């Protein structure tokens, strides 16, 4: 499945980039979130994602049975999602409150 996941990551990233490059704050905000989703999916794809079983140990046992998904990328993605959300929350509020910011930086280069 990693082949298809790779393609989806690419599409998400492309869409996110396209939105980021627009200068409307609204578009940028959406772009940031989309880009974040793409990244999370990328890290998740670093499992050998064949194994659809969740890494849970059944009651009374000592280890998960049979082939299971790699728990580490899941934990990483979970952390990344939350951190990403924190970043996004701040970014969204900042970007939309500030409005359009493109255009020349105020003159500091002139005496």
């Amino acid at each position, binding site marked *: 499945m990693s082949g298809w996941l790779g393609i989806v990551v*690419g599409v998400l990233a492309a869409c996110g980039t396209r939105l980021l490059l627009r200068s409307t704050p609204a578009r940028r905000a959406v772009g940031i979130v989309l880009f974040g989703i793409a990244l999370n999916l990328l890290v998740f794809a670093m499992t050998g994602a064949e194994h659809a079983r969740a890494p849970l140990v059944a009651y009374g046992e000592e280890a998960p049975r049979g082939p299971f998904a790699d728990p580490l990328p899941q934990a990483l993605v979970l952390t990344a999602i939350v951190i990403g959300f924190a970043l996004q929350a701040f970014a969204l509020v900042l970007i939309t409150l500030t409005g359009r910011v493109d255009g020349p930086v105020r003159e500091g280069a002139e005496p």
Partner: protein
Amino acid sequence: MILALAMLLASAVLAAPAVPRLRAVSAVFLPLPLLAVFGMLLARARGVLAGEGEREVLANIAPLSTDLALRLDGLGLLFALLVSGIGAAVLVHAAGYFSENPSTLGRFAALAYLFAAAMIGLVLADDLFTLFICWELTSVCSFLLIGLKHGETEARSGALRALLVTGAGGIALLVGILLLADVAGTTSISALVERGDEVRTSAAYLPILGLIALAAFTKSAQAPFHYWLPGAMAAPGPVSAFLHSATLVKAGVFLLARFHPVLGFRAEWHVLLGHVGAVTLLVGAVLAFAQDDLKRMLAYTTVAGLGTLVLLLGIGTEPALRAAMLFVAVHALYKASLFLVVGYLDKRTGTRDLTRLAGLAVHAPVAFAAAALAALSMSGLPPLLGAIAKELVYEAKLGAPEAPLALAAVGSAGNALVVGCAVLVGLYPFVRRGAPPALLSVPAVRLLLGPLVLAAVGLLFGVFHDTTAAPLIDAALAAAVGEPETAEFTLDASPAVVSWLGKATLLAGVLAVVFRRRLLAAGRRVATLASAGPTALHDRLLEALFGAGSAVANVFARGGVRQTLVWPLVLFVGIGAWLVVGGVAGWSLPDFTLDPYRALLLLLVVGGAAGAVRARSNLSAVTSLGIAGFGVGMVFLVLGGPDLAMTQIAVETLAVLLLLAVLGREPVEPEPRRSRAKLLGNALAVAVGATFTVLVWAAAPDGSLPPLATELAEKSVPEAYGRNVVNVILVDFRALDTMGEVFVLAIAALGVTALLRGASGEARGEPVLGFVGTFGRSPILRAAARSIVPLLALVAIVLFVRGHHEPGGGFVGGLVAAAATLLHAFAFGIGATRARFGPGRLVAVGLAVVLASGAIGLLAGGAFLEGTWLSGRFPAVGKLGTPLLFDAGVFLVVLGVSARVLFGLLEREGAPA
């Protein structure tokens, strides 16, 4: 000698506060440190003249395999005596010059001591780094001293110009000595001197010569770098007398003399120094003669004198070097004396203009005496020391291996003009018939003691040459000559010719004075070019630099965010391209298995993304985004990540809510169609996406679990007492990551609150959540809420508690709890919710709980965040331990953060309080 330097430094520190208190008595105290140094030097002179010089190590810098060291040899002794002796004279004069300005005197004294220490350190340095350190320090002192009266524009610009020119030389020197050290394998100058042949024959010889010569030329105001010296005349008189006549400007000459054993004896040395010196001599002499301001005239004659010195060093024969050494001393003595006299005249009459000064012999006899002696030395009249110097100089020129006649001719011409200047400065103002300008009263003794002494020394040493000056010069010469393997061929110059030349120069000089006006009219254009030319070039260069800077700043500061994104994205695409180009062969094909259900989910995700891009209104964009996010959550679920799926969906919901709240329902501004920027942006976006895809394919593992994952799963139950491996990783194995995560959450909450509070005045679109106002407090909602809220709270707690063994955990639990509080707020108002649940400090409390859970591990004797468990099992929970406490902290933080952010937004939207 280290003691001497330390004493000077201490004096520098004490001077500024102490001098204003001493007032009139300062004239007695000020020269003392320098006189003491002079005395110390004399005490060691005998040993030095006999050829023994001790090495004193200041510090050992092992990592650079170097010692910072000093060594007193003949060359150093000569220069050091000059610095300390002339310095003492100048300080006495300064006490008079600044008599009305004690604080300025204090500053002058402090900087003068510092400078003297640096200068003496420079000439005594026995290793390259000490040399350089002192070199740069003299430049800095010069800068600060020129700007002593920095209220005046000319002082500031003069100082800046000096700093830049000498600074450039300094950098060149640094690179030069690094190359030198690399080639010779040592930084000790005494050792370096013995390895001269190695340096001369190495490939790096030319760069080293060029760099060190550049340093010397900039410091010693050789053409074309001579232009900073006249500008430095904006400094007060004593500064010019001390630094810019006798000491600082000689540093370049010193450098060349010091390195002569290492870098000399090669054609390039002769040619470079010879030409530059000759040109400088001529330029300086001509420009000097054209001046009306006495101080500037002296400055330019100094340039000429320095040119002569460089020329002599360029000739490089023993007689030439001897002449140079003597001339260093002679020049320093008479020049300093003349500068000081001019300073006196300036104070006495208020002017330094040649055309206005006349008939002062009667009113200032002492000054006249000093000036006359100095001027006669400058002109080379016996029995003054200057005469001996002049003889030696001519002897050397005539005895040069190459082009002796040309050198003699140039030298004579220049000297003639210099003689003329000597007459103009030293005799004219006193002897010329006319009325002097209005005379002021000045502290004559202080002002004139110095110059008188210096000029008298010139006389004494001239008369008693063999016993006083000669041994010193010989010792200096020994240091400067070095021991090459090839002996230099010297022509003997006939004494008769030398004597004839000397007389001819004198005559020419006097004639020049007589016909001065006519000569000046003829040469005025040349003179302005030579003086203004380089300065203009310097200024234009600076302008070009500033212009380049503006251009750079505009290119990179213009444009906004988009520009800062494009560069990294382009580079990123570059990496992808490189990957594809480099390694398409030898790739294993990525796995493309798919079943219909998963295919549908992936399509959902892609569709949502596409929809977000093409959306026309904010609402549709956000909705599409939500679809994409939920789709990804489902993908996570299907591929074995239940916790992950829950978190993704929960966070996605929050993100969508947040976006709706801040974006409102306003339509998107229409983008310009089909602009080139838009096409490029699309292309870039596609390329970025492709790069990501290619990277995923290249790096994704091939289906088998890495050993780390297996180990984590196997240890989860027996050692960490949890059946939900992912949760165990989050709150136990890698709890530190989660700790960072909750702090990041808290910071975001702080930020959002700060932003919302700060921007409360600005209105934004139509609040989407405005329905809160209408809905709120509806009795139906309240009734429902009364049962639903506690239910939700219970779900939250259950989720949290079971998280260690089944999907769930602190984060999701906290989010559900936040949902409960949100519902409560809708129904009963924010104020009531706050009163009941008080999220005021909830975030901070949560953070504290997290930290505390880690600390418990420490207190129990383990590591921070080590899982510490109560013995025995509990119903429904299993084992109780710090990871659960940790998760509780996470719960609290998430609840607090969500509540803060949501409530902040609601309040802005006009929700009922």
